[in-house]
């Protein structure tokens, strides 16, 4: 029989011992990091198109996309590692993290949309 988790405290406090699988911090870190990565991709596209930060070319045949995608992956993984370290084993208020993730993702997707960055 399942144990309900909906009534767990949302104080950011540790939920029992470190590494407690019932704590949601690690999962929220994964979501938020993906949102940060999405925003990073959008920002890099806009910065490249505006001429502010031309994307480096790490792999010639792919051109600037190799730079944008690699830098995006670095931002994503670094933010995930940091957030995971900060939130692992802790119970975090999920609603605000969910909202932030979706908002960052929306901004990232919009910024990669050609009609938008062609304005720059």
């Amino acid at each position, binding site marked *: *029989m*399942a*144990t*309900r*988790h*909906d009534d767990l405290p949302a104080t950011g406090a540790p939920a029992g011992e470190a590494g407690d*699988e*019932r704590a*949601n911090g*690690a*999962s929220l870190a*994964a*979501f938020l*990091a*993906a949102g940060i*990565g*999405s925003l990073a*991709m*959008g920002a890099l*596209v806009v910065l490249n198109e505006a001429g502010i930060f031309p994307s480096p070319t790490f*792999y010639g*045949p*792919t*051109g600037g*996309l*190799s730079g*944008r*995608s690699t830098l*995006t*992956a670095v931002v*994503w993984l670094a933010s995930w590692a940091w957030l995971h370290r900060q939130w692992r084993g802790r119970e975090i208020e*999920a*609603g605000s993290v*969910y909202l932030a*993730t*979706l908002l960052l*993702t929306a901004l*990232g*997707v919009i910024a*990669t*949309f*050609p*009609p938008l960055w*062609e304005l720059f």
Partner: protein
Amino acid sequence: MLFSFDSLATMFHGIAAGGLALMGLFAALFWLYAMRSADVGTTRTIDPAPPQRAFGVLMVVVAAALWMTVLGGTYIVFPTYRTPPPEGVTALADYPRAFLLSDAGTAWLHAFAMESKEHMPWIASMLATAVAFVATRERPRLWTDRGLRGMIGAVLAVVFGLVSFIALLGVLVNKVAPVQ
């Protein structure tokens, strides 16, 4: 040879890897929908562990398929697509990017379609990876935490929308200017 390596790579990218990801995303969304009807949080007579494990496995497969699609597209298919024609060459069929940009009627297939395909798949892959991580880590919560299921559903809906959009654009581009 009937099919070139680049042509085979494009087919694998779009149909095998991308197609697998799309099917998996649809299956995952359907699983979440079916879970809404489950006897959640009250007395249960079935063991939830197997379907929870199955969802986790499915999401790992979806994330892996998306990364295969993205990396194959970025580092194998895209270079062939964007190879510039040698100077003096006027027959551009073997140079898809140049071919599309040579005509005002097809230029949008590069300027809009391919430019969208360059970046959005990376966002979809990162989101799918997050869901795969959560789905394997939070197996017990998937059954009882409606908020978590809602968030996973929202993220998967975004990923499914992005991948469907990107896939359609890829079909259009490859129809007009196939990678040979």
